[in-house]
C-alpha cells in the first residue's frame, strides 16, 4: 500500500552534474544517439543523395540558417506567439464549455442518453472537416480558427469528464448523504474532486488534439502563425522554412506537454493515490 522508496545511492549526490547524470540515466544517452544518427542521415541524404536539396530536402544547416534569419526579422517569435495564443483561447473556451457539459452528462442518465448519439456523430467529424462550413460563415478570421480549436477540444474533455463522473464510487455519495449533505455539497465535495483526475486527463488529450487543429486551421483559414507559415512557405518553395515550422510544432508540443500538462495530471492523480503505482 505505502510506497517504499529504495534508499538513493549515496554516491549520486556527490556527482558534479546531477542533472546531466539523471538525464543520461533516464535514457538520455540513447535519445541523443538516435537524434544525432537521424541528423547525420538527414545531412547525408541532403548533401549526397538528393538532387536540388534546397527544393526537396534542405540540410539541417540551412534550416538553422533559415530560423536565424527569421528570428532576426522578428517573424518567428511573432508566429509562435500567434499560434500559442490561439491554442490557449480556443482550449480555454473548449474546456469552459466541455467540463460543465461532461459533468451534467455524467450525473444524469437521461441527459446523457439523449446527447450520446449526437456527440458520437460529431466526434467523427474532425475539426478540419468542419473548417469549410465555418469559413463560409466567418471567412479567414481569428474566429474561424478559434472555433475549430474549441470544437476539437470539446469532445475529448466532455467524454473524459462523463466517464470520470460515472466512475466515482456510489458509496462516496451515499456516505455524504448520510452525513446530511445537500446536492450542492455533494457536487462540491465529491463530484468535482472525484472528476478532477479525468478532467486533467481530458484536458491533456483535448489540448493535444487542439494543437493539431490550430496548425490545420491556420493553414486554411489563418493569418500568420506557424501553420500559416509552413503553408505559405510551401507555395514559394521555401522548403527550409517548411521543415523549420514542422520541427517547431513538435518541439513546442513536447515542452507544453512535459512542463504544463503532465505535471497537472500527475499532481491530482498521485497526491490522492488514485492510481496504483
Amino acid at each position, binding site marked *: *500500500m*505505502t510506497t517504499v522508496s529504495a534508499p538513493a545511492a549515496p554516491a549520486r549526490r556527490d556527482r558534479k552534474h546531477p542533472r546531466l547524470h539523471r538525464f543520461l540515466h533516464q535514457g538520455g544517452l540513447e535519445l541523443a544517439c538516435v537524434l544525432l544518427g537521424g541528423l547525420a542521415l538527414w545531412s547525408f541524404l541532403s548533401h549526397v543523395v538528393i538532387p536540388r536539396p534546397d527544393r526537396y530536402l534542405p540540410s539541417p544547416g540551412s534550416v538553422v540558417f533559415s530560423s536565424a534569419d527569421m528570428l532576426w526579422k522578428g517573424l518567428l517569435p511573432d508566429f509562435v506567439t500567434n499560434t500559442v495564443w490561439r491554442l490557449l483561447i480556443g482550449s480555454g473556451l473548449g474546456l469552459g464549455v466541455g467540463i460543465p457539459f461532461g459533468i451534467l452528462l455524467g450525473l444524469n442518465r437521461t441527459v446523457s442518453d439523449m446527447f450520446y448519439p449526437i456527440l458520437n456523430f460529431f466526434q467523427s467529424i474532425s475539426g478540419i472537416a468542419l473548417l469549410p462550413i465555418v469559413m463560409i460563415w466567418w471567412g479567414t478570421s481569428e474566429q474561424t480558427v478559434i472555433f475549430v480549436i474549441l470544437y476539437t477540444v470539446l469532445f475529448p474533455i466532455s467524454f473524459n469528464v462523463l466517464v470520470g463522473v460515472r466512475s466515482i*464510487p456510489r*458509496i*462516496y455519495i*451515499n*456516505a*455524504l*448523504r*448520510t*452525513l*446530511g*449533505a*445537500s446536492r450542492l*455539497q455533494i457536487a462540491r*465535495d*465529491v463530484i468535482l*474532486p*472525484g472528476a*478532477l483526475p479525468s478532467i486533467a486527463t481530458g484536458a491533456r488529450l483535448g489540448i493535444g488534439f487542439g494543437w493539431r487543429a490550430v496548425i490545420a486551421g491556420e493553414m486554411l483559414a489563418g493569418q500568420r502563425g506557424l501553420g500559416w507559415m509552413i503553408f505559405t512557405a510551401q507555395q514559394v518553395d521555401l522548403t527550409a522554412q517548411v521543415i523549420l515550422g514542422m520541427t517547431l510544432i513538435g518541439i513546442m508540443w513536447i515542452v507544453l506537454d512535459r512542463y504544463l500538462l503532465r505535471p497537472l495530471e500527475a499532481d491530482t492523480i498521485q*497526491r*490522492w*493515490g*488514485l492510481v496504483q503505482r
Partner: protein
Amino acid sequence: MREKLIVEGLSHHYPDEYTGMDIHALDNVNLKVTEGEFAAVVGPSGCGKTTLLNILAGLLPHKVGSVRVDGHEVKGPGPDRGVVFQEHAILPWRTVERNIGHGLEIQGLPAPERKRRVQEFVDLVGLTGFENRYPHELSGGMKQRVALARTLCANPVVMLMDEPFAAVDAQTRITLQEELNRIAIATRKTILFITHNVDEAAFLGDRCFIFTRRPGKLKATVKINLPRESRVWKNAVADPAFTGARDEILSLVREEVRDDDG
C-alpha cells in the same frame, strides 16, 4: 431507558438487478434498540442485513412498515443516523482531519470549534499524528478508524455499522473490535452493528438479533450478559457469559445455513 430506534412491521421487496425477478428481502421485521445499547444483527449472507441497514440509513425508501429514530419517521438520509460502511467510504482527496470533520463542515460549524472537536475524535480513535495524511497513505484498519471517527464526530443519535471490519485482516480486526468496545463505552452511543461474524456479534453486542435467511425475519434475540468493561478477547474466550452466548447464536445461525446446504 428510552428507545432510540424502533422498527415495526418492516417488509421490503425489490426487483433483481439482472433477472428482474421479485426479491423478498425483509419480512415483517420488528425490533427496538434502547439508548446507549449496542445491538448486533447476525444472519446468513443474503438475509437482507444490508437492505435493512440501507433502509434505516434512509438510502433505500421503504413502503411497508415504519422506522423511527428518536420518535421521527425515517424519510431519507439525515445526520441523526451516522453510517459506517463496509468498504472504504472516506474520500481519498481529503486528509484524515478533513474527512473526520466533514460532517461538521456540512452542518456549518465554524472552523475553530470544528478543529477542536475533530482533534478530540482523532485522539479517541488513536490517529494522533496522522491528521494530515491522505487515505492512501493509511492501512485498511486506519481507514476504518477514520470512517468511524467521521461518523462519531457528526454526533448522530444512532450509529449504524455495516460489517465495518469485514475487509481488514484478522489481527487488525481483533484490535478494532476491542477499540470499538472502548469507544462505545466512552461515547455511550446507541449502535446497530451488522455482521455475519458470530464471534464479533457476541463480543460486541449487549443484545444480538438473529435473522433468518431470505426473506429476512427476526428469528431470535440473544442477550449477552458480559459487562462491557470486561470485554477483552484474552478474557472473553474463557468467560462462560461470552462462550455461552456465542454458541447459542452460532447454533441459531447454523440452522439457517444448514437448510440452505440441504
